[in-house]
């Protein structure tokens, strides 16, 4: 299978998308915006159709059908986000995009990231954006409440940008569609299993202890046996567990049928383990980046008030006057 979908259809989608976005970008001609929206919708529809049909033809399973509404929502919202003349709406549409992509994250079994995304992005970052939008936008003049600044109402070089963007999309998708079928897949189910369960559990002996304890497998003074390097003595493939008694120093083997259902490495375990075990330095760097960003934001956003010398003197005099009782009464 060379391509997932036929290139002609793909390029048609790209062209349509480019036309749609180019037309829908804020401009003086509002009618064109609507047309553009429609064309873009058509492009999305065509994409869904072609992807779905082609996939069906190839005999491979389609993705979870929840994917489609999320995908359409994400793309539509992001299209609206970049085309909406009002920044506030853009931000809101971006929240919509995020929520839609959270759905896709869920479909991709990344539930922690899905909720983290909602919390951090939609909850924190976007709110900051909204604040800044409020802060930095001039109050609309009373004459026309519908007034939109030219900055927002007219896009800059929409055609060339769309051409660049969608040519890039065409290249990316073509490349990805050609390459995605060549991706190495974990073929053997056992290996899949081992990979899936990974050695995470081995490295989390206390978690294993806890789960076994909750499942009632362990008795008093018992715990999962530790290997010499401190990992849990679990055979993942054969699903056996070695348990040792810490008091008596005896060891017993738990069969695979006694394997508790709950004994599995969840997404969060894996993520946390990966983060802490494989990328500790990166965390540090990320922390420093955030710290610096915080400091930078404080420094940048601080208001520099530079007063003229005479103004300063006047302020000082005023201050002095206010402190002296006579002046105070006089002012009062």
């Amino acid at each position: 299978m060379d391509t997932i979908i036929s290139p002609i259809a793909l390029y048609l989608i790209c062209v349509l998308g480019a036309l749609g976005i180019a037309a829908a970008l804020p401009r003086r001609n509002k009618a064109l915006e609507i047309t553009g929206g429609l064309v873009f919708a058509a492009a999305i529809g065509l994409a869904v159709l072609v992807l779905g049909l082609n996939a069906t033809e190839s005999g491979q399973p389609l993705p979870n059908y929840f994917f489609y509404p999320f995908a359409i929502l994400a793309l539509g919202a992001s299209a609206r986000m970049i085309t909406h003349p009002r920044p506030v709406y853009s931000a809101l549409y971006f929240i919509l995009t995020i929520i839609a992509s959270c759905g896709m994250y869920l479909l991709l079994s990344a539930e922690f990231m899905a909720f983290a995304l909602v919390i951090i992005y939609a909850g924190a970052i976007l709110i900051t954006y909204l604040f800044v939008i409020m802060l930095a936008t001039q109050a609309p003049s009373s004459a026309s409440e519908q007034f939109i600044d030219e900055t927002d109402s007219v896009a800059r070089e929409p055609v060339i940008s769309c051409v660049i963007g969608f040519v890039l999309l065409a290249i990316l998708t073509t490349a990805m569609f050609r390459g995605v079928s060549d991706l190495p897949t974990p073929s053997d189910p056992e290996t899949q299993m081992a990979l899936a369960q990974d050695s995470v559990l081995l490295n989390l002996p206390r978690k294993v202890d806890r789960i076994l304890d909750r499942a009632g497998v362990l008795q008093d003074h018992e715990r999962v046996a530790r290997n010499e390097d401190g990992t849990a003595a679990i055979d993942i493939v054969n699903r056996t567990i070695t348990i040792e008694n810490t008091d008596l120093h005896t060891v017993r083997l738990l069969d695979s049928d006694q394997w508790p259902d709950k004994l599995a490495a969840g997404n969060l375990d894996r993520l946390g383990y990966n983060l802490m075990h494989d990328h500790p330095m990166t965390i540090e760097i990320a922390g420093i980046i955030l710290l610096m960003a915080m400091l930078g934001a404080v420094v940048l956003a601080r208001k520099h008030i530079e007063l003229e010398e005479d103004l300063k003197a006047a302020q000082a005099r005023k201050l002095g006057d206010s402190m002296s009782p006579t002046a105070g009464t006089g002012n009062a």
Partner: protein
Amino acid sequence: MDHLLHSTQLAQLAFPEAVPAVTMAHYLFVSAAMFVMGLVGFLTRKNMIVMFLCTELMFQGAGLALIAFGRHHLGADGQTFVIFVLCVAAAEAAMALALVVLLFRHKETLSAQAWKELNG
């Protein structure tokens, strides 16, 4: 809804099955489209805040691809990187917005076009 629940359950059960290529292609298409949309927005919108929003959109596109690939490889690295992307996005938001405020104070406009002191 079953499917959704199933996939969550699957997640809990540590990815018993790999993602087929067609599914990957779907996700990748969406991620690329999001990225490109962000790019187009960045190039066309003059409002600095919207431009930064568009960069966030590009982050999202990249994040989706990362998650998808991570799922495909049955590993957690993809998600880890999304965390970092989140970090960078947050840092960028903080800095960029501070900058936007600063710039806005100088020119009383959010238009990126107003800043062309570097023109040749």
